[in-house]
């Protein structure tokens, strides 16, 4: 490039050098004036990754997590101004005491009491997910918020409006500046701050985790251990790894033919009829808290879930082959086996997570 500099360019350069000198003088005086106003670098935060988890998917390099970024993200998460009429925050449908699900609601309950058609998913361990939502329609953590924000029955808002609301709030300006070293509020920063907060929401301190990582001498009861064995044989084909999901989309036979007409799941994203009735295999962490169950929230208890697997599986064309291996579609289980599995599932409860003040609104 430099090779092509002509006389004219030289002239421009000389001019620019002069201008530059002038500007830098200005900058000097500015510097002195606002000595105490010097913007500090936000404090980097290292996220502790549980040793029993699969690798991180989210690109932390593109959005380095900082203390100030997390604080800003948390404020955004709990801010009702994210909705059209300033009534609903992310935290409204994702409540901490139920592992960030919407307790007491089978399907989403949003703005103006409008109902969606799917059960809210817990917010936990998002850093490790390749895709989001029951149908996997969103493929990057930075984009998850847009779904709820723009959905007409959830928040019914849009980001430019939200940013305009936040611009009028001096507290936000300060926090954006602290997190990103400039007061300017942009959609990218808004989403990145939210992602930073979401990225820290890791649930990995259940009884099961302590047992598997051999921490604090934690052991499982006989019933829990039997449940774990059964789980490995019968459930871990889909609820795999220590995230308890293999992150694929499968039809576990929950949808009846009529249900498929209302919600065909993954097929809505791929337009592939072979994906009809397939949903993301959900993680079972904190499953004790995340009732009701399944994509449409039709099951209330874990007993109902296991009864469904043993005697309620619908044999629709896309039913997963793992549920066709026995004489009758489904998973045959005795009453005791069911109890043992449930006992095991409850070892996935992470009290620390649902009580952690780091994530709570107040």
């Amino acid at each position, binding site marked *: 490039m430099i090779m092509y500099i002509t006389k004219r360019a030289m002239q421009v350069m000389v001019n620019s050098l002069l201008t530059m000198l002038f500007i830098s003088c200005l900058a000097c005086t500015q510097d002195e004036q606002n000595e105490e106003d010097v913007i500090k670098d936000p404090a980097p935060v290292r996220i502790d990754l549980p040793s029993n988890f699969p690798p991180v998917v989210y690109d932390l390099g593109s959005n380095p997590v900082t203390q100030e970024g997390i604080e800003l993200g948390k404020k955004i998460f709990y801010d009702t101004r994210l909705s059209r009429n300033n009534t609903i925050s992310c935290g409204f449908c994702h409540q901490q005491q139920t592992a960030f699900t919407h307790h007491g609601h089978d399907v989403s309950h949003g703005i103006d009491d409008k109902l969606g058609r799917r059960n809210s998913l817990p917010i936990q361990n998002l850093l490790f997910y*390749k895709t989001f939502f029951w149908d996997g329609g969103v493929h*990057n953590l930075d*984009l998850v918020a*847009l779904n709820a924000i723009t959905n007409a029955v959830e928040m019914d808002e849009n980001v*430019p409006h939200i940013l305009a609301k936040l611009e009028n709030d001096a507290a936000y300006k300060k926090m954006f500046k602290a997190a990103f070293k400039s007061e300017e509020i942009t959609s990218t920063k808004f989403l990145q701050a939210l992602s930073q907060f979401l990225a820290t929401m890791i649930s990995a301190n259940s009884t099961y985790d302590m047992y598997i990582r051999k921490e604090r001498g934690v052991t499982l009861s006989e019933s829990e251990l039997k449940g774990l064995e059964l789980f490995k044989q019968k459930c871990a084909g889909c609820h795999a790894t220590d995230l308890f999901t293999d992150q694929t989309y499968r039809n576990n036979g929950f949808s009846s033919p009529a249900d498929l007409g209302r919600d065909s799941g993954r097929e809505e994203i791929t337009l592939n009829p072979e994906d009809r009735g397939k949903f993301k295999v959900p993680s079972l962490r904190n499953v004790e808290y995340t009732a009701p169950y399944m994509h449409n929230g039709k099951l209330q208890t874990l007993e109902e879930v296991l009864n469904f697997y043993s005697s309620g599986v619908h044999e629709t064309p896309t039913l997963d082959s793992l549920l066709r291996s026995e004489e009758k579609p489904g998973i045959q289980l005795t009453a005791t086996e069911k109890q043992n599995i449930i006992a095991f599932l409850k070892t996935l409860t992470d009290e620390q997570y649902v009580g952690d003040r780091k994530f709570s609104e107040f």
Partner: protein
Amino acid sequence: MKTIYLINIILLSFLMMSCSDDDVTPGEKGSIVIEFDNRVGNTNLELYKDYINTNGETFNLTKLHYYISNIELRDINGKAFKVPQDSSYFLILEDDPESQKVRINNIPSGSYNEVTFTIGVDSLRSTMDISKRTGVLDPAQPQDGMYWSWNSGYIFFKMEGISPSAPADQENKFYYHIGGFGGYNSPTLNNIRKATISMGSARAEVKSGKVPQLHLHVDILQFFTPSITIAEHPNVMFADFSKTISANYVNMFKYDHVHN
């Protein structure tokens, strides 16, 4: 320290500016403006005005938006100039005349007679980190809703309007929201279409100090030709049939004239 840092930044940015500015390096680089002139057959398109499509249906448009990206120019010797990826995304809005004039800078001077572009946004960019998707590509700034947030991806082409042929129970409105970059982790709808437009014997003479204006006609009637009726398809969004539509609309773009 800080001041030195500042000086460096300023010096650098001035250096960069002086190198890239098109009239500072005569004979080397030039610019072109490509104008997307939306039309209905032989007349200029106006929103809210009634027209008749090739299937005899009366209609008007209330909205017409589309993305143009990955522009490439070819000169008479067949030499191609690719607009750098980071500055090759444009959103054409019928209600914003400025948006219809796409200016490209830093083109090696020469006689150009062909232009190629994508209608939509390529899959690579569609899945990039959000910090690399600002401006018209910002998924959070719904440039009048050109992004599907439930199914991460851009709407490439959006056309809405009113026609007596559209169902009365949706107030005679029709909606075409066409997108689909091929899928992130499972293959799905792909509506990425490329148009290549030859200027025939005409030339856009790119050189410093002059900005040729390449004028393209974008004829909405081609959208319906052949055989897409509003009556049969009043709403097309994320569905297989949208491929038929994008196969039609890629033919809307025609060379009209060039001013040198």
